[in-house]
């Protein structure tokens, strides 16, 4: 299973391509590609978005499901999805806590 990730050009924010074609700031909104055709579609959309100067550093990443949640296989991508492990008060992890108080 793969996701398409990038950084937003204007501010560097980590984003993932969502099913509706938006670049989502939260990995849980990412579209999951489960076959070659879907992967190619993600890559094509990524190339076009980079060409439109929306995002930079576009990459496919490997993910799996752990306890029902998307889990990037590489630690690097897990840190990108959450924020610095040393600063739970910074990055997406901090925002998520605010958004989901329950």
């Amino acid at each position, binding site marked *: 299973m793969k996701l398409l990730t990038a*950084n937003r*050009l*204007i*501010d*560097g*924010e*980590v984003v993932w391509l969502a099913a509706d074609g938006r670049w989502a700031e939260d990995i849980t909104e990412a579209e999951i590609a489960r076959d070659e055709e879907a992967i190619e579609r993600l890559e094509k959309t990524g190339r076009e978005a*980079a060409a*439109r*100067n929306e995002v*930079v*550093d576009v990459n496919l990443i490997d993910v799996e499901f752990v306890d029902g949640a998307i889990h990037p*296989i*590489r*630690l*690097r991508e897990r*840190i*990108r999805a959450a*924020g*610095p*492990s*040393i*600063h739970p008060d*910074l*990055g997406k992890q901090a925002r998520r806590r605010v958004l989901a108080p329950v």
Partner: protein
Amino acid sequence: MYRYDEFDHAFVKARVAEFRDQVERRLSGELTEDQFKPLRLMNGVYLQLHAYMLRIAIPYGTLSSRQMRMLGHIARTYDKGYGHFTTRQNLQFHWPALKDIPQILEDLATVEMHAIQTSGNCIRNVTADHFAGAAADEVADPRPYAEILRQWSSLHPEFSYLPRKFKIAVTGAERDRAAVQVHDIGLHLRKDASGRLGFTVYVGGGLGRTPMIGKKIRDFLPEEDLLSYTTAILRVYNLHGRRDNKYKARIKILVHETGTEELAAQVEKEFEALKESELKLPEADIQAIDAYFAPPALPARPEGDAALKAATATDSGFADWLRRNLNTHKNPDYASVTISLKGIGEVPGDASADQMDAVADLAERYGFDEIRVSHEQNLILPHVARADLKAVFDRLVEIGLATSNAGLVTDIIACPGLDYCALANARSIPVAQQISTRFASQARQEEIGDLKIKISGCINACGHHHVGHIGILGVEKKGAELYQVTLGGSGDENTSIGEIVGRGFGPDEIVDAVDTIVETYLAHRQDKNEPFLAAYRRLGSAPFKEALYGREAKAA
């Protein structure tokens, strides 16, 4: 310190305007990322894991209060309220938005700072001893020479597209506190028999994937020849340095492959042609730059000793701090203070905007407006009257920067690692935090004595692990973090590269491994006066291997 003249102001202002235009053209789509990337790198803008990163040059680690306050302002206004002081005596902001960076650079320019040449294959920020101009053991202040090199190398047309980046360090005392032998060029100031100032020149030192100790190619280079000789080295490197392979492109590989003698001969040949050129430094020019670095007028403050005696009698924390965080000043009424950015369990090198402001206030009130950044990721107040040390300490306690651990096991260098860096393979900072917490006890730290731990999260070695007494290198193995340990490295006047002790350790094992190494040292040292490094050099790795790997070591 150096003050910009009209030319400098115009130069930096023009550069900011140029980059503002480049950013606008990038955001409008007029420039592609491929076109823009080299331009942003030339202005210190990287793309890291979570955001852009802006690396700001702090020439030879010297800052005024005004400049420090501006860094605090930028942290507060455009970033997340903190900054990270680096092993290159620079400062990095980890969260700026690209759209804001031109304004940040404009703000920086108002205090005579910029981010030029903090990236790219050019001559980078020239680093120097952080006690420069203050240390009792100094032959001469290295900063005027670092400043001359900075001016000469800024946008140098011949040396803006070198095979790879190029780092120069200058130190001015017998003890090398600038790690000059692990730089592309290391300059060690000294006087010859007739009292003339000059440099011992090392070339081809470096860390990274191929660590090398610099080779001495000149025992004594007169100061007037600084630029002509440096130019000669750079010319040889620019011509013959390998451009075919990024990993073999640093000058250390050229020196290694060419041979020191042959390379020195090539440099001398170039130097002969340049020696009497316009690069020869006129005495008047050296003096003009020297004048900017004239030490502040230090009034006599003989009451210091009595004040310290009284204060230490009632405050043992203050006594600890005096024991560890002072460096002997030329003037016996004064001391250089190390402000540790290594609070127990904290992130090495990080300072909040409020802490930056408070340090700026302290420097202004007690430190003749001078602050230094050390390559060991601490801050220094180079000139503080001993009579004022208690007041400085009390304020540092209030702002959480009074940790008494300079040079001790918790004074750890760590690169940003995988928590921030796009190149990293493993995290560095959490390892540093855990080791720091394990060794929190002041008494135990002082019992252990001088011990430098340095941690890098990848082979590029920003955390200088090769020259750590204990070096830790994070790698990725089968998708997990693994930490390799080296022992016996040192980045001083007796530089050595650490030796790998054995198989690596997982994140849950590495702190115990360091603890085992420290306990082995304590058990084997001759006495308390034999520091870790000396004990390792006497003992070799065998007792450490035995302690770490026991049965495995015997089986092998």
